[in-house]
C-alpha cells in the first residue's frame, strides 16, 4: 500500500520535476559594485547581528589575493573559514588588519569585533554586519572606479591595467603575518586546447596568476592534476565553481567573458 503511494508520488514528481529545476533562464547579473560580494553568516544571526557583507573590490585594490587567502588564511567559499568574533578580537582573520591600530592610506583601520562591546559600538559593528541595512561606507564604488580603466562584466574594471598604470598598488606582504619570501620562480605560460572545435585556444598565464596568488592558493586544492593533459577541464565544471570557476565566477573576471581566456585564433 505504502509502496504504491510512494510510486504514485514519485510519478507526480517526475512529471512536475522538470518545472522545478532552474536551468534555461537568464540569471540576474550582479551590478559592478555587487560583484564579489560575500555574505557571511556562520554565527552573526545567532548573535543577533545582521550577517556580514564583505566587498571584494575595496580589499583587492589594496592587497593581492595571496595576502588574505594564504597569509591570513581565509577560505575561498563563504562560511568555510568559520570566523568567530573571538578570532577577530585576537587579531586573526579580519582582526589581522581590522584592529584599530593598522594604518592604511594614512587612516587607522577600524577595529572589528572587540571583546567588550557596548551600545556605542553598534555603529561600528554595522560597518560589516550590514546585510539588509543601508550603511554608509567610507568608500563609494562609483568614485573609486571613476579613474580606473573599464572592462566588461564583473566589477566592470580592468584590474590588470589599473595595476599596470599604477592606479592601484596591491600589497603582497603584510608585516607580522606574511612570511618573508625571497624569490619567485615563475612557471611557464601554456596553451589549453578546447574540446569544442573552433573555439580559440586559451593561453594561460602562470606569471599573471602567481603575481597575485603565489602557488599555494591554487595548488593542490583547486588544481590537483599534476601532469598536463590528465585533467580535462570542462566549462560546465567551471561554471559550477570548480577549477577556474573557483575565482572566475564570483570574484575575478567572470567566465562569461569568453574572449579573455579564449584569445588565440585557431591555427588553420
Amino acid at each position: 500500500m505504502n509502496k504504491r503511494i510512494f510510486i504514485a508520488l514519485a510519478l507526480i514528481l517526475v512529471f512536475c520535476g522538470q518545472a522545478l529545476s532552474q536551468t534555461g533562464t537568464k540569471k540576474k547579473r550582479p551590478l559592478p559594485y555587487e560583484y564579489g560580494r560575500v555574505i557571511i553568516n556562520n554565527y552573526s544571526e545567532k548573535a543577533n547581528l545582521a550577517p556580514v557583507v564583505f566587498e571584494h573590490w575595496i580589499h583587492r585594490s589594496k592587497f593581492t589575493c595571496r595576502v588574505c587567502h594564504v597569509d591570513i588564511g581565509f577560505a575561498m567559499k563563504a562560511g568555510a573559514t568559520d570566523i568567530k568574533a573571538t578570532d577577530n578580537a585576537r587579531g586573526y582573520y579580519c582582526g589581522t588588519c581590522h584592529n584599530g591600530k593598522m594604518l592604511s592610506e594614512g587612516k587607522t583601520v577600524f577595529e572589528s569585533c572587540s571583546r567588550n562591546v557596548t551600545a556605542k559600538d553598534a555603529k561600528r559593528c554595522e560597518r560589516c554586519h550590514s546585510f539588509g541595512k543601508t550603511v554608509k561606507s567610507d568608500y563609494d564604488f562609483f568614485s573609486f572606479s571613476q579613474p580606473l580603466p573599464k572592462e566588461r562584466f564583473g566589477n566592470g574594471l580592468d584590474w590588470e591595467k589599473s595595476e599596470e598604470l599604477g592606479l592601484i598598488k596591491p600589497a603582497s606582504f603584510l608585516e607580522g603575518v606574511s612570511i618573508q619570501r625571497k624569490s619567485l620562480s615563475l612557471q611557464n605560460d601554456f596553451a589549453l586546447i578546447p574540446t569544442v572545435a573552433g573555439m580559440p585556444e586559451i593561453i594561460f598565464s602562470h606569471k599573471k596568476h602567481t603575481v597575485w596568488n603565489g602557488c599555494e592558493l591554487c595548488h593542490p586544492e583547486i588544481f590537483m592534476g599534476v601532469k598536463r593533459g590528465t585533467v580535462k577541464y570542462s566549462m560546465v565544471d567551471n561554471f559550477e565553481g570548480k577549477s577556474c570557476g573557483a575565482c572566475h565566477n564570483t570574484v575575478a573576471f567572470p567566465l562569461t567573458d569568453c574572449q579573455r581566456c579564449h584569445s588565440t585564433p585557431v591555427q588553420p
Partner: protein
Amino acid sequence: MFKAKIIAVLLFIGLAGLCGVRAIGAPSLSAAQPSPAQEAWQKEFDEVCSKTQDAMTFSQEELTVLLRRCDALLPQIEKLDESRKKVYMGRLRMCRGLYAYVLDAKRNEKK
C-alpha cells in the same frame, strides 16, 4: 598537612588564573610576549613555508625533507589555542599541500 594542602590549592588557582588570562590574550598581532617554545615553532613554520615560491626548483629529496618538517609542525600547531590553531592549520595545509603536489609532479615527470 592541611597547611600544605591550602598552599597547593592556592598555587593551583593562581596558576589557573594566569593560564586563563594567557588564553584570552591581547587582540593585536604583536601581542603579549610569546613564550620561547611558541616562538620556536613559529620560526620553523616561517622557515619551511617561506620556500613555497621556489618549490619547483627543489629536488625530490629536498621536497621530502620539507614535507617531513611540515608534518613535524602539525602536533605543535594542534596544541595552540582555538584561533591560532584554525589559522595555522589552514596555512600549514596549504604549504604542505603545495610541496606534496610539486613532489608528485616531479615524480610523474620522471616516469
